[in-house]
């Protein structure tokens, strides 16, 4: 009978419906941590009037933290009740936007007969608003604004900010009330914990665990830092979505291989570049070229020319020039770049870092891109070829002779660094037989001999045979030479620019 009366009442008042609006008034985008303001007001649809308005809504308290509420009515008596840990269980046979229908269902029986109309739910808070007045309450005026702090969903079970607040039911005298914005969805929330952000290191250097990263905010304050793993990946936490950070990548100065980065191949490449490009740097305006200018311009004068190649050569022979920026033992000049702005978002948390070392002209320990190889800088490392080389040490007539037996006739640059036992040997001389017009060099530094040859024009080749012989005088009585000479580095490059790793046999 009660249901019949309610149905009759609904039928009678059907033509006098109104809307209850429930919407946020913030501008977009909204950031985690922002104050979200939800406004309530009625909208007339068919000359409806009311002196009493009562409605329930509920909000997700995992995503919203209530700050306060304010009634904006002038005259009506107002009330707001609040319950945490409950959620309205609507009648799914009735449209959810039919707020009066849901009210009638709830008030007409579900409220009294069932405990399931409001289920326990720790994620939800229910608020019940009542306005009553002796005269008609005007439509289209703000009734109430409830303010919330928008919380980070990172630590919740929610993957988005949809359905964060919803109207449950309403009644307004004899009117049928429909929800205008029944459910609030926040589609464009920025910020918040980014969770695991992956930074991938791109370099040809093998010891990726020697690399470190630093994440900084816009003004350069460090947020976090750490090491890459052996695979060149870093999992970074503690960052926020939609915030752009600065990223620095560098090699730990204790890395034992830094002294191997710049070799004669790099100098030879720069000589060829200087010949090809003259005084003008390459003008291609892609990012690789920009990087290359920095890597090659080791004296930082803005151009890539013979001064740079000469500086690299002096570095290789152990007589480095001042005011140059060349990676060396215990000293790395780091250059890094990213594939895109480091700005984690909900759907994008993986970034690539490209790392380069100044002076590493053959990219042996830097990121390498194929497009470099197809440009004029065709000497960049693509495939390093191994070649066997015979180096011998022998006790001859009381002296130690170190001999390089060169058997390859297409080399335009070759470099050796050998260490010797200075407690038992002293350097006497080096004999070059590398060809008449080849530029040879040798430098003795502590217990190391830097020697080799380069043909900077890139046209002639180093003579084969016993191209180099170093003679040492024993300082003490020795029986033989095993272990007295240590082959630290040997490298060569062909006239065509192919880098060779010289494997001793």
């Amino acid at each position, binding site marked *: 009978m009660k249901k019949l009366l309610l149905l009759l009442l609904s039928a009678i008042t059907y033509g006098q419906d109104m809307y209850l609006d429930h919407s946020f008034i913030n501008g977009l985008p909204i950031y985690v941590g922002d104050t979200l303001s939800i406004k309530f007001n009625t909208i007339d649809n068919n000359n409806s009037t009311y002196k009493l308005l009562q409605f329930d809504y509920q909000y997700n308290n995992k995503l919203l933290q209530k700050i306060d509420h304010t009634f904006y009515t002038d005259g009506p008596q107002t009330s707001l009740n609040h319950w945490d840990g409950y959620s309205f269980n609507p009648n799914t046979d009735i449209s959810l936007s039919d707020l009066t229908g849901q009210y009638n269902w709830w008030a007409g029986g579900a409220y009294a007969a069932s405990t399931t109309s409001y289920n326990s739910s720790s994620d939800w808070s229910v608020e019940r608003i009542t306005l009553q007045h002796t005269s008609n309450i005007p439509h289209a005026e703000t009734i109430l604004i409830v303010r919330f702090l928008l919380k980070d969903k990172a630590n919740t079970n929610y993957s988005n900010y949809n359905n964060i607040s919803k109207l449950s039911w309403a009644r307004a005298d004899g009117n049928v009330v429909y929800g205008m914005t029944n459910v609030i969805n926040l589609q464009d929330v920025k910020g918040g914990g980014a969770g695991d952000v992956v930074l991938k290191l791109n370099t040809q250097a093998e010891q990726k665990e020697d690399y470190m990263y630093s994440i900084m905010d816009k003004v350069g304050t460090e947020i976090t830092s750490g090491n890459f793993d052996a695979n060149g990946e870093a999992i970074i936490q503690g960052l926020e979505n939609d915030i752009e950070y600065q990223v620095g990548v560098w090699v730990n100065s204790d890395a034992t291989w830094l002294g191997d980065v710049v070799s004669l191949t790099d100098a030879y490449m720069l000589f060829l570049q200087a010949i090809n490009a003259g005084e003008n740097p390459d003008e291609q305006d892609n990012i690789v070229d920009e990087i290359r200018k920095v890597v090659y311009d080791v004296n930082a004068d803005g151009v890539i020319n013979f001064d740079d190649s000469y500086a690299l050569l002096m570095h290789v022979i152990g007589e480095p020039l001042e005011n140059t920026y060349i990676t060396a033992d215990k000293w790395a000049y780091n250059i890094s770049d990213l594939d895109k702005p480091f700005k984690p978002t909900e759907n994008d948390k993986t970034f690539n870092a490209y790392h380069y070392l100044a002076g590493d002209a053959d990219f042996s320990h830097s990121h390498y891109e194929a497009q470099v190889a197809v440009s004029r800088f065709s000497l960049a490392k693509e495939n390093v070829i191994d070649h066997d080389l015979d*180096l*011998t*040490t*022998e*006790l001859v007539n009381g002296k130690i002779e170190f001999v390089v037996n060169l058997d390859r006739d297409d080399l335009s640059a070759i470099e050796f660094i050998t*260490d*010797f*036992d*200075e*407690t*038992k040997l002293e350097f006497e001389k080096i004999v070059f037989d590398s060809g008449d017009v080849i530029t040879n060099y040798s430098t003795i530094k502590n*217990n190391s001999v830097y020697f080799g040859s380069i043909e900077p024009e890139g046209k002639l080749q180093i003579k084969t045979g016993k191209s180099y012989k170093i003679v040492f005088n024993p300082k003490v009585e*020795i*029986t*033989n*030479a*095993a*272990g*007295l*000479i*240590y*082959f*630290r580095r040997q490298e060569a490059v062909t006239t065509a620019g192919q880098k060779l790793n010289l*494997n*001793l*046999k």
Partner: protein
Amino acid sequence: MKKLIGLIVILFFSCQKDPTVYTPIPYVLEIPEVSGLKLESYIVTDKVQVNVKLPETGQYRIKIFDFTNKLVSQELVNGQKGDNILNVYVNALPPSSYTVSLYDNNTLIGKEFFTNE
């Protein structure tokens, strides 16, 4: 009494050897095979004695490899058939673990590991 008899036996056999062919090889460097290589010690400072026992008189190579099997030092030696007591010097080698090998052309005759401290 047993020790005394043993000593007399050793002295007897020692006296029977031709002193011109006797080679005083330290016990730790003795190689029972016809050829091979043996180190006096496996933990080395400054230098270590090595017995290079050659099958024939000729030119051989002593090669030193680092732990990645990269050749880091090499010597051509002209040795006599039998035991040749030489040295491996380690001051020029960075502290690490190495393999010293004896080669006849490309044939490995013997090898030993040592640590340079």
